[in-house]
């Protein structure tokens, strides 16, 4: 995965702390991902993550991307991102969708999320699309601040929903 390797710069710009290694997910990462997700969300979703890893680690590797970040010295899993290139209806051309991003609380503000974001951006670009999107709850300030900081702006679509009576 050459594009992800490009993210493996030696140190972050503003911290004297090595940037993480970014690589494709492996089934061996399952426990680490479940543990990280449980720490962040409070929910253990073993079946969900097993299904995701099986799908993203095996199928359509030029369109589905699940990347993990780990410390350079101890190979400890400290973050992950996954997304895919897919088409959409209503006249939308294929683009890269970021579906999830998580960074261990103690590793935040040290460039881990940015390294993951840049790595999946490079994968999307290699995959032939020139736009990436994500969807964030408008009261999720942490994620909104992060994605805005990475240069994302409001897109041309508005998410709509309806209560099913």
């Amino acid at each position, binding site marked *: 995965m050459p594009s992800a390797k490009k993210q493996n710069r030696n140190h*972050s*710009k*503003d911290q004297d702390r090595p940037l993480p290694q970014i690589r494709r997910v492996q089934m061996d990462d399952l426990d680490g991902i479940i543990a990280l997700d449980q720490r962040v969300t409070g929910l253990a979703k073993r079946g969900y993550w097993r299904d995701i890893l099986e799908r993203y680690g095996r199928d359509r590797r030029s369109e589905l991307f699940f990347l993990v970040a780990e410390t350079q010295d101890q190979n400890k899993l400290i973050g992950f991102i996954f997304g895919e290139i897919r088409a959409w209806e209503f006249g939308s051309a294929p683009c890269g969708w970021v579906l999830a*991003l998580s*960074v261990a609380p103690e590793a*935040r*503000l*040290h*460039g*881990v*999320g*940015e390294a993951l*974001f840049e790595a999946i951006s490079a994968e999307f670009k290699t995959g032939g699309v020139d736009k990436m999107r994500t969807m964030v709850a*408008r*009261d999720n*300030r942490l994620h*909104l*601040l*992060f994605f*805005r*900081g*990475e*240069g994302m702006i*409001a897109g041309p679509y508005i998410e709509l929903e309806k209560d099913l009576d």
Partner: protein
Amino acid sequence: MRLQVASQLAIYALLELAADPDRQLSVGEIGAKYGISNHHLAKVMNVLGRAKLVRSVRGVGGGYHFSGNARRTTLLDVIELFEDFGAGRSDGNAAGAPGKTTGEGRALAEILREIDEIARATLGSITIATMLKIVERHRGGSPARANVIAGRG
């Protein structure tokens, strides 16, 4: 939507100062760039000073420099120093709004609340550091020119 003039001036002033936190600028220098009267801008700077977003330096060569956290201060934080930007600010059900008890009035209020919520979410998600990146993009320069270290996730 429109911002009050004071909110706009405050954002301009913070962007000028946060682009180089080591630099001091006088009210006159900032005002000259944006065509703002010193009197009006001075009042805005006082509010920003009380919020600890800028610090004044007295004496010859004095002025203001940025003293906030550009990665944590959002546009909404700044705007709310000058105007009420709470949800429902354009609520059609506000006191005195005609037809507020009718079904039509409540329906219109619902739509206006939706617009307000989106506006708040947008302004609350853009920091001064992010704005500096956007400014650089509009200038056609590299974001790295700004000395402020933008948010790192």
